[in-house]
Every structure is written in structure tokens, then in C-alpha cells.
């Protein structure tokens, strides 16, 4: 228990991971996850997501820092932690020549308090695949088998490393529904994803990883707060951005023009949009491909990557 009364199921303090060649994949990150929360680690490929999750799963010892999962060190106190966690690796590791049912039976035999295999396979939509060999499953079906095995032991904490990579749109929605249902039953979920939409839909809180460090963290609303909104439209021939009302006075912080489309980033979306649309109405101009959107995780994400590059360049 911590001071605000929430039990922190996962606590990470100043975590570092260094690979054999000296590459520092995780460079001192700290966060905590409360019981019954969905926490997303977001980042581009190579940001350190999987390196971090593997440490939380107890597959390797960190180079520095401290991890507590359910109050234990997941690497040193493996036996105390494993019966209470479920893990889905980024790439499933199942013998190609076993059938779905054989794989589930094997995993159930290795799991304390395992649910009936058929029930769990049914839950992920593999009820009609029992006799199919793993090598004949599609990529999406393999992800769902992996999820089924992670759920077999009714875990208190679930680690999902890119759970929906390779799934089609429907499979992705199904997985989201399942993960939310698990959270509602009290399961704590830590997932990684590079789909911003996934983090936006699922995560109660998230951290954006960039080059092994946490660049931003909080609820999706907190992370996007303070990020500029976007507006874009096409000007008809004969009109130029100079014809628009003075942009800086409307809260526009940045604009681009490629000879046809105008892209604005603004801190005051309503004022900017009203001014531009009023101008168009008065001038009798038809704006093409009009798009107005408030700040999203994507904006925050791209903004962070851009700011870091500028820092590196400077």
C-alpha cells in the first residue's frame, strides 16, 4: 500500500538494462502500476519496450534499479511470482508440431490452478482449432493461442508484449474487449504497443518510451494536454496562406504549405477554426479536404520524437 491507498502491484525504480555488447536499452526508468489498472508502455521500435517487459517478467536481471512485482523481485524470487503472473511474449514460442489442444494441455500441467483448457481456448476464439497443429495457425491465431496460455492460470498480473500485432481489425477489437473484461475483474495488465490507437482505447495510464527513457507519462488525457491540435485544408487555385487571417494571433504555433494543402498546429483550436471558416465563408472560398482534430496521443508521440531529435541535433 502506498499513501494514496492504492496497492501498487508493479513498482519500477530507476531501472536499467545493458546488453552484452554494451548497448544500454533501458536508461533509468521509474513507474508504478496499481491493482486493476491497464498500463501501456508506448514507443517506436527500439524504444526499450520489450527490454523493459522482459525484466518485469523476470527473464533477466536488470543492470541497475529495482523491480517489485506483487512485492517480490521477479528474477530472484521467481517461484513466488510466477504462479500469479501471466505472460505473452512478443513472439510466441510453441513447438510447431504440437496441436493447439496439446500445447494448452502441456501449459496447463505446468500452471498452478489452471482453468480448463477448452474454456480458455473458447474465450480467445480458438474453440474450433483444438486439433490444428501450431504451424498451420495464422499469425493472428498464434497470438490468440499465446493470450489463452497467459490467461490459463487466472493471473493477478498480465504482461502482454504487443498483444495485437498481426491481428486483423476484428481480432484487435476482440482482444481489447477481453483485456477490458479482465481489468474489470481486477486483473492488472501491463501491455506494450506501438499502436497509439490501442493505448488510447485501452490504457488507464501510459508511459511513452523513447530511447530507453520515459519521455511522458500519465493518463492519456494528461499526456495529450498541452499538445497542439491540428487543422488542415486545401486552398483553391489563386489563394495562398498569406490571404488567411493573421495566424499567430489565432494561437497557431506552426504551419506548413505544400502548394496546395495548409497544415496548422494550434493551441486554440476553436478560435483558429472559427476564424479560418469565417474567412472562407466571406471570401466565398470552398476549402477542400477539411480536417479538424483535437490533440491526440499521436500528436504527443510525434511531438516527443521531434523534440528529442531537435535536442540531439542542437
Amino acid at each position, binding site marked *: 500500500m502506498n499513501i494514496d491507498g492504492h496497492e501498487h502491484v508493479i513498482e519500477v525504480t530507476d531501472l536499467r538494462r545493458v546488453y552484452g555488447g554494451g548497448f544500454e536499452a533501458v536508461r533509468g526508468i521509474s513507474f508504478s502500476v496499481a491493482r486493476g489498472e491497464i498500463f501501456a508502455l508506448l514507443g517506436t521500435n527500439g524504444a526499450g519496450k520489450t527490454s523493459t517487459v522482459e525484466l518485469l*517478467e523476470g*527473464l533477466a536481471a536488470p543492470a541497475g534499479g529495482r523491480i517489485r512485482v506483487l512485492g517480490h523481485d521477479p528474477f530472484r524470487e*521467481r*517461484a513466488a511470482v*510466477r*504462479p500469479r503472473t501471466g*505472460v505473452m*511474449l512478443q*513472439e*510466441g*514460442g*510453441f*513447438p*510447431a*508440431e*504440437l496441436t493447439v489442444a*496439446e*500445447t494448452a*494441455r*502441456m*501449459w*496447463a*500441467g*505446468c*500452471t*498452478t490452478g489452471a482453468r480448463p483448457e477448452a474454456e480458455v481456448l473458447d474465450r480467445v476464439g480458438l474453440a474450433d482449432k483444438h486439433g490444428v497443429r501450431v504451424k498451420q495457425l495464422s499469425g493472428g491465431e498464434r497470438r490468440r493461442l499465446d493470450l489463452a496460455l497467459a490467461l490459463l492460470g487466472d493471473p493477478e498480473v498480465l504482461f502482454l508484449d504487443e498483444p495485437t500485432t498481426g491481428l486483423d481489425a476484428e481480432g484487435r477489437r476482440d482482444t481489447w474487449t477481453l483485456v477490458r473484461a479482465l481489468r474489470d475483474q481486477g486483473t492488472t495488465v501491463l501491455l506494450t504497443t506501438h499502436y497509439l490507437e490501442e493505448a488510447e482505447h485501452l490504457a488507464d495510464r501510459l508511459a511513452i518510451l523513447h530511447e530507453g527513457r520515459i519521455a511522458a507519462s500519465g493518463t492519456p488525457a494528461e499526456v495529450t494536454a498541452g499538445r497542439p491540435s491540428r487543422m488542415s485544408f486545401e486552398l483553391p487555385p489563386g489563394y495562398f496562406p498569406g490571404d488567411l487571417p493573421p495566424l499567430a494571433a489565432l494561437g497557431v504555433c506552426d504551419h506548413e504549405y505544400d502548394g496546395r494543402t495548409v497544415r496548422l498546429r494550434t493551441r486554440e483550436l476553436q478560435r483558429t477554426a472559427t476564424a479560418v471558416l469565417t474567412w472562407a465563408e466571406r471570401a466565398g472560398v470552398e476549402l477542400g479536404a477539411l480536417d479538424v482534430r483535437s490533440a491526440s496521443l499521436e500528436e504527443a508521440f510525434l511531438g516527443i520524437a521531434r523534440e528529442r531529435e531537435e535536442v540531439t541535433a542542437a
Partner: protein
Amino acid sequence: MSTVLTTPSVRRLRALARAELSLLGRNRGVVVTALLVPLLLPFSMRPALDHVDLEKQGISVGAAMLTAGIGFSFLFAVYSALVNAYVARREELVLKRLRTGELTDTEILTGTALPTLTLGFAQALVLCAACVALLGAGAPKAPYLSLLGLVAGLVLSAALAALTATVTRTVESGQVTALPVVFGSMIGSGIMVPTEVMPEPLASVCELLPLSPAIRLVRGGWTGQLSAYEALGALATALAWTVVAVVAVRRWFRWEPRR
């Protein structure tokens, strides 16, 4: 090692061994090699054995072929098959996935080895029966020594397989990395030619090879020629190799493919 004996551990080992047995049965190449080589290869040596003066050493042709068969069983039914299994499971990321669960590292390696170890043990019993019935190998004089040798040989073959797997990247390259142990043992450990008929000091050196004490115990138990001192020496050598192999595996075994 005490955790291996607790009940959940037994349940996990059984689940893993059962899956591994299905996989073994579905790998035709490995099955054919494991089943046929130890049963057929000793017969191909029969003409060669006639040139060696075995009688002077008190070894019957039946006993010589029996130990050859058991030795081939160590090398092909257990060692080679297990190098293949460990490397294949690692490359398929199965070992990594298993380590995310409740199995301990020892259980993962043991459970994977159980089907081939059982196969090797059953094969040895069949070979014993066949050599007694068909080749007049006679009854063993000290069966407990043969049994000790058999168990030591099986354990060492599995440990050597795990060790070989640490330096093997792919299933294909396993056919090369397994050769030193296979040929070294065939020639030097008394499988093809009993070390007793080798000249000194070659024989003394060969007796120190990893599988030599196991073969020596199996054969000595059968012929009853091993003194208590020699039997203890062989046991100590086998034990030393087992400790070395286990320590090396714990230290260097790779659970994930090199990327």
C-alpha cells in the same frame, strides 16, 4: 535439486515430458536414427571383433556387442536426439516461453530429456535381452554395476547434449557440433573397441573420457572383472564429469537464440 521431488514439480515434468514425447514421435529422422542405429550398428562390428583377442581379456563377443549397443544408444538415442531437441526448442523460442512460467530451469532441461532418457533405458534392456538370448552374452556377474553404469551414461549423455546445445546455433549445425562427442566416444570410450585391449598409456587416457566410465561399468558388471577399486574409480570419474557438465550448463546454457 530438492525442489524436483515436490509434487507440483512432478506434475510439471510430466506435462512437459508428455509434450516432448509427442514431438519426438513426430520427428521421423530422429526416431529412425535413435531406434535403429543402436540395434544395427553393433552387428556391423561383428567381423572386426573377430580380429581382436577378446577371450584373453575374458570378454565374450556377446558382452562386447552388448556394451557397443548400449554405447550407441547413449550417443544416438539420447545424446544426438537431445542436442536436436534442445536446439530446436531454443530456436522456436519454446525455452524462453517456458521460462516465463512456473517451471524451473532444471525442470525445463530435465522434462525435455525424459522421453529420450526413457527410450535409451528401454533400448538397453532390449539389447541385454537380445544379447543374452541370441549371442550367448551370459548372465551379468554384477548387475548392479551394469545398472549404475547405465544410469551414469544416460545422465552424462543428457548433460553433454545440453552442453553441446550451448555452442550450437541451428538444428543443422548440430549435426556437426555433435560429431566430436560421437566419434570421440565411439573410438575412445570403449564402445567399438574395449579400452582393455588398448595399449598403455592410451588406455589410461581414454578411460578419462566422459562416457568411458559408464561403458566400463556396464561391461565390467557383466563380466565381473572389475575390482571394487576400479569400479569406485570409474564411478568417481563419471561423477566428476557429471558435476563439470552440470556446472558448465548452468553457467553457459543459452535460453534464447542469438540475434
